[in-house]
């Protein structure tokens, strides 16, 4: 079947099998390998992307369901050379170690801050419950998201 979507502000369209998962579509058809496949069972959140601005696990969505949607992956978050405030905050607060969960963690955080611009630490911990990190113990991730929230509020 023919599907098309906007990914990171660029238009893509391809013939795909109906069973193609969104994560496969992004990685294999669009060549955007920043989105990682972790558990492949919608537990770990590594494959998190934004569909029409909201976080979803792209391993548990058909590409066909995103037909016509606007998708943002980690490659589309920066504006040119300027990182998104969440990316900057993860960098400055050492919010990652091996980096495998990071793309998903950052996009889940962007979506969370869209919904809760002024989160408490508890809001962040609950809001990221769908994203697993096996390195950091979450401490610096939570710190990063709180720092990003503050930076984004200051920028408004």
């Amino acid at each position, binding site marked *: *079947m023919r599907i098309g979507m906007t990914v990171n502000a660029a238009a893509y369209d391809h013939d795909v*099998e*109906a*069973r193609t*998962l969104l994560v*496969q579509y992004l990685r294999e058809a669009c060549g955007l390998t920043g989105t990682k496949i972790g558990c*492949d*069972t*919608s*537990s770990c*959140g590594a494959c*998190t992307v934004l*569909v029409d601005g*909201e*976080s*979803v*696990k792209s*391993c*548990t*969505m*058909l590409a*066909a*369901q995103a037909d016509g949607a606007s998708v943002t992956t980690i490659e589309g978050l920066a504006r040119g050379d300027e990182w998104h405030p969440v990316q900057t905050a993860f960098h400055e607060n050492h919010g990652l170690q091996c980096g495998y969960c990071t793309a998903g963690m950052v996009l*889940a955080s962007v*979506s*969370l801050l869209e*919904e809760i611009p002024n989160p408490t630490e508890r809001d962040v911990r*609950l*809001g*990221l*419950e*769908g*994203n697993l990190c096996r390195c950091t113990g979450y401490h610096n991730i939570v710190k990063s998201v709180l720092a990003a929230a503050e930076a984004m509020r200051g920028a408004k």
Partner: protein
Amino acid sequence: MIPAAFDYVRAGSAAEAVSLIGEHGEDAKFLAGGMSLLPLMKLRLATPSVLVDLGRVRDLSYVRDGGDHLAIGALTRHRDLETSDVLAQHCAVLQAVAAQVGDNQVRHRGTIGGSVAHGDPASDLPAALLALDATFVVQGPNGTRDLAASEFFRGFLETALSPDELLIEIRVRKTGATGFAYEKFNRRAQDWAIVGALAARVNGGTHVALVNMGGTPLRAVAVETALAQGASAADAAREAAVGTEPPADLNASPEYRAHLAQVLVRRALEAI
């Protein structure tokens, strides 16, 4: 993991969805948010020949004040339940339970109707709707019919829906902004409940429902009876596992689940 091949069609309305499922026969399945069905398909535990995608059926997403009840469109996402002012005011219990389903990403996609039609005894919303004596409005080729929650859940992942019927609306009584507690016990934050217990004041009485204590969501009838006869929360909660058939899995034995049910029911009753 990739699902087995299937044909994919899209419905633009409930009527078109019902007509498409009729056309494609018993091996066709409706796809709502896909949070339950797609994982099953990836594991090849479900291999529908055709998926009828309901993602473009826009007019089944709403929470409406129907006077003496609330009407909730079957395709209303958990996220929209979580943020609904109407629900906060008139049936906050459902809002609180919706906020505990899965994680943010799951709540952005998953729908109340999908959760109900999937009929998983470990899901949060079916048990809550059972406690609230919800009515399910289903549309088939010959019109609509109403099904009571008490007669809807028939067995593990088995409901009273015929293969050619679509759940279109959930109706619940107004229970207000308070008078409920949901105790969900799990080991990983985003997981299904190992056991869950919900207590809510409904229509002058106390209703208690159990998650993951049998093949279907259950009402803790013995607890409700004891309460109606004047038992204390602690005494009534001792009856929580009566009549249940809790499953055994990696997380818990049936005996441990029975213990959990008693503890969680007591906590829920003491909190309302």
